[in-house]
C-alpha cells in the first residue's frame, strides 16, 4: 500500500495517474516526478517497490506543495486579498465572481442556488 502525503494511492492504477489523486499534482507534475524518480509512469502502484515509494515521497515533499499546505496557502492568499481591501478581496467577501464575469445571469457557482425574489412577476419567463 503506497501512502504519500496522507493519501492512499489507488492500487491498480498506473503511477502516473495514481499520483494525480494527490491534491496539487496533475498529469504533468506526476509525469515529471516519475521521471526524476526514474520510474516508468505506466507501472502499477501495486508493483512499486518500497524504495521507489520512498523516492516518490521525498521528491514530492521537497519540490511540491500539496494537500493541506496547498489549501492553507490558497486560503491565506484569499484572506490577504480581503485584508488589503482590493477589488478582488471585496468580491471574495461577497461571494461573487472575482474575475469580471457577468452576474446579471449565471454566476451560480459563486452565488449558490437561485433565491427567488418575492413580488416579482413571472421571474421565470422574463429571462
Amino acid at each position, binding site marked *: 500500500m503506497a501512502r504519500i502525503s496522507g493519501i492512499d494511492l489507488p492500487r491498480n492504477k498506473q503511477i502516473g495517474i495514481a499520483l494525480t489523486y494527490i491534491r496539487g499534482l496533475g498529469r504533468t507534475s506526476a509525469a515529471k516526478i516519475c521521471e526524476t524518480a526514474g520510474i516508468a509512469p505506466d507501472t502499477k502502484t501495486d508493483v512499486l517497490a518500497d524504495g521507489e515509494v520512498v523516492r516518490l515521497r521525498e521528491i514530492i515533499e521537497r519540490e511540491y506543495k500539496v494537500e493541506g499546505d496547498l489549501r492553507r496557502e490558497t486560503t491565506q492568499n484569499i484572506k*490577504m486579498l480581503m*485584508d*488589503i*481591501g482590493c*477589488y*478582488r478581496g471585496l468580491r471574495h467577501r461577497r461571494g461573487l465572481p472575482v474575475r469580471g464575469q457577468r452576474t446579471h445571469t449565471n454566476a451560480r457557482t459563486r452565488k449558490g442556488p437561485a433565491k427567488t425574489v418575492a*413580488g416579482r412577476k413571472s421571474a421565470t419567463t422574463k429571462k
Partner: protein
Amino acid sequence: MSRSLKKGPYVAPSLQKKVTRSIESGSKQVIRTWSRRSMITPEFVGMTFHVHNGKLFVPVFVTENMVGHRFGEFSPTRKFTGHVGGKRIRTT
C-alpha cells in the same frame, strides 16, 4: 518571462513626481491622484493616497501586501445599495 514583466511597472509620471517630491520633503501630505492604473511600487509603502473613483477620492493607506496591485483596485467605482424590497444590506 511575460512581456508585461519585461516592460516594468507602470506609474504615471505625474504621480511619480508627486511621490518623489513628498519623499524628499518628508511630508506626510496625502497625495491625490486620478491615476488608477498606476502600479503600487515598494517606495509607496506607508503613504496615504487619495484615489479618485470617478466621483470622490477614496483614501488608500498603502501596506506592504498591496505592492504590485494597482490603485484602482482599492477604490471601488460602483456602489451597490441592495435591491428594491430585498434585505437592506448597507454598503459604502
